[in-house]
């Protein structure tokens, strides 16, 4: 019996190559998208779960409210790790990461600039499941000046040599001995490092014994990342409950002094990637994007499934006789249902095979786009296989069920006699299904337009400073920092170099917050303020606009010791209004033995500019000039558009004379700022690709349906032509109905798209608003696609020879 079913199914498929191909293509593409998205989402949810103990690993973050402003940040302070282990019996172990930015690594005569470097505790391998290829996990990070390097960099530095015991030179000053090789950190880690130094190095270097201090200056400096490992069966809620007692013991005194309300944020390591909402965090994923992708996969599958249902029921008149005859010779209703379900399952599973093969081919490209190392294999991702098999099964059953129940309910007698014209399925239902497809497509089209517009908006938003033709280079060489003024003078000799300035932090990328005291009605109040240390040329080079007062000047001696410039937000925050000039401001507060403070007055207010990423609303900022060479960490060189390569060559040459041991590593500021939008760019690209796909599948369905309708109406159209209808009349007749459906679909899509995309846009402090033109454009695009799809078949039908058409039976 089964054999007979399959024969019928296969012959049906091969008899109707055109419709089968449309169906297969739609289902395969739908499944390809579903598999890719499933792999993507699976990877997003797998972050940090490769750590066997991930259920017990928590990160300590900080949440404080100062003068009404809340700050939730991922970093913690140095003493927290060890004191947590002492204080809470639940804590088995702790580990700290002290990130150290970009550094120069030298081995033999080769030098490299590396990122992803940190100092860390020797408990690394007790907590995380990283794989050490060479070295003893108990010992590699215990001694001072030890380093472990990942596999990729080991190959880069040492080639085939055995690296263990080799010495590398860091920033031309510190020597480290290679103690181990670690396997590259899995890509699904929320933080990644390439090189780890032993934390005991810092203890040894610290002559004044500050490192292990438990004073307030140590507790209240939030600049490192701490993880704790709970004991088996310990409950994190107990740690949270007892934290106020801990706070009272270690932190309360200074906290009360500045009036801060401090809480702890304990995050499960596996939750960080998707759920962390903290500032100063490693770049994380976004659970909203997961929802969006999930919806897209569901949409595309729905469209493909609807295609199948529509085509199958539309062609029901052709199948009716077959069904009738099966019934006459003894088939029960259930066996007919089974036949059609089996047919849809055969089709969907064939489509699945095509999809799996295609995914294997597409995956390298997809990985490039999403920046992941996804694989699809029975051994590595058996869960994905099970999932897509289940999805395919559901797809087959759901899309096969309507044709199955519809066709099996046919009464055989009239069909076989040929007395009753079989209606081609339920027309209303088919219309509803087409409306569904085009609503989904309209949501995707308007989503694409909105995502592109937002990206365009962010990229072209006035940042409030000049970012064109500015070359940036980090200055890691301390002798160059000392000779900075000479270097600047040498550069300025070139007429194509307009200005040179230095700062501590790179605009838009890194900044630092420190407690300031500001004047409020003759009293000084605390506020955690962002700051940057600049030189006299910075404001001019960046073209920052002064609102009140003046810029820093070399002529006035006190400008490098006691002068501050604040931004408009700060002036507003401190209620200074138009009288900001002359107000007192103090950088830093004295905590314990720590006295890095600077007292002064405000000499100018600049208008707000985006010194942080556009995903953060502009916060108050203070700027000041320092003559101390250690603040000259970023050099900014403004050049003319014209003859850039010559200018660059000149800078390179000058650099080499001032800093022969450090290569000139530069980038353009605007390029660097544009890389900030990678997440949005990736989302835009995915949106474009997936909406094209969903439109493509919906169009294939519409194409098939319209061909079928035209075919069905051959005789009617022939009669109409004989009675005098023009080709135009007939094309209009055939396309009119689909147009109506597309318009209804768009009307349904508008509120859904508006609602969903507004939720997405809410994440951006600087965003576009959804205007009516977006939906009008969407409608026009849908209509053009619809017209394009339907008109060809309609035209063919209209041009057909009417004499042949009316003879056709």
């Amino acid at each position, binding site marked *: 019996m089964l054999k007979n079913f399959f024969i019928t199914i296969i012959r049906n498929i091969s008899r109707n190559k055109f419709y089968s191909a449309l169906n297969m293509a739609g289902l395969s593409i739908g499944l390809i998208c579903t598999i890719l998205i499933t792999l993507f989402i699976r990877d997003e949810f797998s972050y940090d779960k490769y750590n066997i103990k991930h259920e017990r690993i928590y990160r300590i973050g900080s949440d404080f409210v100062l003068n009404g402003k809340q700050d939730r940040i991922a970093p913690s302070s140095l003493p927290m790790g060890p004191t947590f282990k002492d204080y809470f019996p639940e804590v088995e172990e702790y580990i700290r990461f002290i990130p150290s930015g970009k550094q120069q690594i030298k081995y033999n005569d080769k030098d490299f600039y590396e990122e992803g470097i940190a100092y860390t505790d020797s408990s690394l391998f007790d907590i995380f499941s990283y794989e050490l290829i060479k070295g003893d996990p108990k010992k590699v990070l215990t001694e001072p000046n030890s380093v472990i390097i990942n596999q990729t960099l080991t190959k880069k530095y040492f080639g085939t040599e055995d690296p263990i015991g080799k010495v590398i030179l860091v920033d031309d000053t510190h020597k480290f001995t290679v103690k181990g090789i670690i396997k590259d950190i899995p890509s699904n880690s929320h933080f990644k490092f390439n090189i780890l130094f032993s934390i005991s190095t810092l203890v040894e270097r610290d002559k004044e014994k500050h490192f292990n201090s438990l004073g307030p200056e140590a507790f209240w400096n939030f600049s490192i990342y701490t993880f704790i490992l709970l004991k088996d069966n310990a409950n994190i809620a107990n740690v949270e409950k007892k934290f106020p007692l801990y706070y009272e013991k270690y932190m309360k005194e200074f906290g009360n002094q500045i009036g801060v309300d401090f809480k702890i944020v304990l995050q499960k390591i596996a939750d960080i990637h998707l759920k962390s909402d903290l500032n100063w965090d490693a770049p994380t994923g976004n659970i909203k994007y997961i929802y969006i992708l999930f919806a897209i996969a569901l949409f595309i599958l729905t469209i493909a499934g609807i295609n199948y249902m529509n085509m199958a029921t539309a062609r029901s008149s052709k199948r009716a006789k077959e069904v009738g005859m099966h019934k*006459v010779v*003894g088939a029960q209703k259930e066996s007919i249902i089974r036949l059609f379900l089996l047919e849809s399952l055969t089709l969907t599973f064939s489509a699945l095979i095509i999809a799996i093969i295609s995914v294997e081919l597409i995956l390298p490209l997809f990985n490039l786009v999403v920046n992941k190392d996804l694989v699809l294999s029975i051994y590595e991702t058996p869960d994905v296989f099970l999932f897509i098999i289940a999805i395919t099964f559901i797809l087959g059953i759901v899309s096969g069920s309507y044709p199955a129940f519809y066709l099996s309910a046919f009464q055989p007698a009239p069909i076989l*006699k040929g007395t009753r014209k079989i209606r081609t399925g339920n027309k209303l239902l088919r219309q509803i299904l087409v409306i569904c497809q085009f609503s989904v497509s309209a949501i995707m089209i308007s989503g694409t337009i909105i995502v592109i517009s937002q990206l365009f908006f962010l990229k072209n938003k006035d940042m409030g400073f000049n970012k064109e033709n500015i070359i940036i280079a980090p200055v890691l060489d301390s002798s160059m920092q000392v000779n900075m003024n000479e270097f600047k003078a040498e550069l300025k000799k070139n007429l194509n170099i307009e200005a040179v300035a230095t700062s501590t932090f790179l605009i838009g990328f890194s900044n630092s917050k420190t407690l300031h005291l500001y004047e409020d009605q003759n009293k000084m109040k605390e506020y955690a303020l962002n700051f940057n240390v600049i030189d006299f040329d910075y404001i001019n080079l960046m073209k920052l606009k002064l609102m009140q007062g003046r810029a820093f000047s070399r002529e006035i001696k006190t400008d490098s010791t006691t002068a501050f410039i604040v931004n408009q937000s700060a002036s507003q925050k401190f209620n200074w209004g138009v009288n900001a000039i002359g107000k007192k401001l103090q950088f830093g507060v004295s905590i314990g033995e720590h006295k890095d403070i600077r007292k002064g007055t405000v000499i100018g207010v600049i208008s707000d500019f985006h010194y942080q990423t556009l995903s953060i609303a502009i916060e108050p900022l203070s700027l000041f000039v320092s003559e101390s060479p250690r603040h000259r960490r970023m050099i900014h060189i403004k050049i003319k558009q014209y003859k850039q390569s010559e200018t660059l060559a000149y800078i390179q040459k000058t650099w080499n004379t001032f800093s022969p041991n450090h290569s000139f590593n530069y980038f353009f500021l605007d390029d660097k700022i544009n890389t900030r939008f990678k997440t949005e760019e990736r989302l835009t690209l995915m949106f474009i690709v997936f909406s094209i796909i969903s439109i493509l599948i919906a169009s294939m369905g519409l194409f098939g349906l319209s061909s079928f309708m035209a075919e069905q109406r051959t005789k009617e159209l022939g009669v109409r032509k004989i009675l005098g209808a023009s080709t135009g009349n007939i094309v209009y007749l055939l396309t009119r109905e689909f147009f109506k459906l597309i318009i209804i679909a768009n009307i349904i899509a508008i509120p859904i798209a508006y609602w969903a995309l507004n939720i997405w846009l809410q994440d951006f402090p600087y965003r576009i608003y959804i205007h009516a033109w977006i939906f009008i454009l969407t409608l026009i695009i849908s209509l053009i696609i619809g017209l394009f799809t339907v008109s060809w078949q309609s035209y063919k039908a209209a041009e057909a020879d009417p004499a042949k058409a009316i003879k056709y039976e």
Partner: protein
Amino acid sequence: MKTFRTDEVETNALNNVNLEINEGEFVAIMGPSGCGKSTLLNILGLLDNPTSGELFFNDAQVDGYSERQRTNLRKENIGFVFQSFNLIEELTIYENIELPLLYMKVSSSERKKRVNEVLDRMKIAHRTKHFPQQLSGGQQQRAAIARAVITNPKLILADEPTGNLDSANGEEVMNLLTQLNEAGTTIVMVTHSPSDADRSHRIIQLFDGHIVTENMRQKL
């Protein structure tokens, strides 16, 4: 009685029809278009249920049977022959004829034996691998008859079996039906052709859902 309902009008397709067909009989039903011939045939073939009245098959009262029961009764006992053949286009001649046996769950070797036997009898053994469209009308109808008799039904219902055939092929089909009848199969045939009706034992004239005449004929 059989009533068809459309939105506004109720039509009684058959009214007050009292008919008994004996085993081994060959009955022809005649009458103008729309007189209820096909409805009567469908009710006799258990494809349709009467709206009211009683129906007996093999002494069992079968009106009010569920679709499942009717299907089971039908597949064991009744064969159908249509004017438009109604062979399934996606199946070969062999597979079309085999189909009823599949629903009766006959073993594969037995199926093969019986299909080949009937193919020989219908003189289409050389066409087994072909699809219906590749055959002439006469050959298709012989295949359809082969499919109807493969289960050895007690009753064959034929709805204008020669309606789409030329006279030579029509003649051959009528010969086959006559032979089947002589071998003991009951046949009820709807026809417009008086010469086909001549082959029967009894001609029933229907008009407007009523039986108007019933001619018993004595075969010579």
